[in-house]
């Protein structure tokens, strides 16, 4: 695995650039498509956000309600995606490595959060988790209220971001040769050691990718979370609702201002996760 030592890499360097020239069509498509689909629309948003001048931008973007909404959105999304990081990996493991009845159906159902329209998802979650719902009624006697609280927002975010971790870890697990882990095992490594030292490191990039994607999806999600939340400012009002409020007042620049702030924060966090991952891989190669 780790044959490619650093001197070799240095020798290969020019080769890499040659390769780059050869496959530049891939680059060209990537860059052009990204620009048209993503960068130009984003630029349109940024320009619209700046039409009212920096003072108003700052006012809208940093009003107390907005600040608390960012906090609710990002912290809840982070927790939800972290939980999915653990359980999603477990699910992927179970689906790839074990056989059990109805496995195919379980596998199929994992994608459901994407396919269900968000309104239906939110409605269903509200129904199931409210005080008189299937799950909510079991928790209500314990004094736990899920729907129409911040917990409900968390549940909705967990729901919609679940497929990401499962589906990013699954292919890597499938590619991973089982013999590596069996040989580690027959060499006398304990289960825990096998998992921690042999299985987890190569899975880590995929898990982090899944968490990053799930996180960003949870941040942007609006349709389902709004139905499970009570939408009370300073309690469980999420930032995308603020965008919608602004739009409803025909305040395009205010809406795009909040959109811009969310975009900047997400980009920062995603960049952090991706750098962490790159750093992790570098460590792996040594």
């Amino acid at each position: 695995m780790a044959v490619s030592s650093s001197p070799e890499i240095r020798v290969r360097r020019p080769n890499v650039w040659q390769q780059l020239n050869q496959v530049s069509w891939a680059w060209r498509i990537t860059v052009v498509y990204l620009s048209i689909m993503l960068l130009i629309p984003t630029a349109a948003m940024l320009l619209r956000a700046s039409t009212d001048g920096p003072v108003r931008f700052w006012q809208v973007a940093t009003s107390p309600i907005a600040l608390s909404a960012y906090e609710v959105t990002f912290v809840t999304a982070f927790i939800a995606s972290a939980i999915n990081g653990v359980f999603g990996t477990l699910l992927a493991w179970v689906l790839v490595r074990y056989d059990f009845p109805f496995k195919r159906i379980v596998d199929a159902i994992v994608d459901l959060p994407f396919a269900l329209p968000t309104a239906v998802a939110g409605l269903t979650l509200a129904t199931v988790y409210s005080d008189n719902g299937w799950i909510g009624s079991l928790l209500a006697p314990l004094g736990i209220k899920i729907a129409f609280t911040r917990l409900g927002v968390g549940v909705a975010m967990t729901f919609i971001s679940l497929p990401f971790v499962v589906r990013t870890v699954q292919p890597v697990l499938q590619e991973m040769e089982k013999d590596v882990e069996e040989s580690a095992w027959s060499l006398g490594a304990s289960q825990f050691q096998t998992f921690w030292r042999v299985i987890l490191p190569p899975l880590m990039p995929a898990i982090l990718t899944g968490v990053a994607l799930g996180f960003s999806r949870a941040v942007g999600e609006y349709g389902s979370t709004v139905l499970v939340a009570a939408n009370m400012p300073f309690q469980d009002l999420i930032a995308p609702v603020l965008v919608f409020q602004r739009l409803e007042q025909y305040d395009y620049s205010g809406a795009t201002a909040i959109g811009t702030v969310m975009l900047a924060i997400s980009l920062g966090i995603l960049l952090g996760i991706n750098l962490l991952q790159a750093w992790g891989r570098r460590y792996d190669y040594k």
Partner: protein
Amino acid sequence: MKPWRWLKNTTRRFTALFLAGISLSVAIAACTPNANTSGTGQQGQASTVDLTLVSFAVTKAAHDRIIPKFVEKWQQEHNQTVRINASYGGSGSQTRAVIDGLEADIVQLALALDTERIEQAGLIEPGWEQEYPNNSIVSQSVPVIVTRAGNPQNIQNWQDLARDGVQLITADPKTSGVARWNFLALWGSVTENGGTEQQAQEFVRQVYQNVPILTRDAREATDVFYQQGQGNVLINYENEIILAAQQGGQQLPYVIPDVNISIDNPVAIVDRNVDRHGTREVAQAFVEYLFTPEAQAEFAAVGFRPVDASVAQRKEVADKYAPVNTLFTVQDLGGWDTIQQQFFEDGAVFDQIRAGN
């Protein structure tokens, strides 16, 4: 190597299947309008005219009954088939869509403020209010107070909503433009009853203190109250409650306060678009048809208060819609521009009472 060859073959087969799928879809898509035209061909050699109607969500039930009647009438009178393509959604979203280029010929929105926005965008000519009867108000309703069965809180009027122990479900005026009617009803219940603005503000603050959940729109408020069993009082529109009872079989008692605001939904022709499409004549005919007793009876059937006196006097309609003693309008509160500035802009009254909570 073998599995790869397999994959290669499978991929090829899939590509073929996929292409077949696409061509099939395209064929279907191409056929659908064809089927329509051939249908018209059978009805006569007349040409077909397309109208786009953009409206807020709950009018669909009425329009679904009115449109076929109008189409038939037009067919008979002009030997021409009208195809009315309708779009329903939140009033604010629909307004934005029209401003951004949705080529609506006719707009029936939940509040005149939205129609005025389209006017300001230069798509509707000023003076549209005077073009049709009743200041172009085509349908009306009032906010009502829904309680749990047996009315355990004994809620009789707006004032009761400020009491302790009331848990009020209502839509957020910030996300649902239509929910502004609820707020204005509460406010007007004080100011139109001899109270001062300070008193009104204090009252509204107390009421919104009793709100545990602000939903995105009226429909969701109904759902949270009926389906999810949250809260013990709901403010919603009479038409919404009647529709919920008709379609969903959800019956709960409701109170119509005797000092109330009249919810007025205006209709207008989008001048720029009808001129471009050459559809002014048929669009005007449709809007006029909406004011006829036939159409108004359909509005009345699905929960709206009819604007036509002859329909309103019919026994089944008069029984359904109890009269309101003091009915005020947005004009009594200063008109939409003033209202918007005074209550809903950044830092205006609604923000103040929320901050006060």
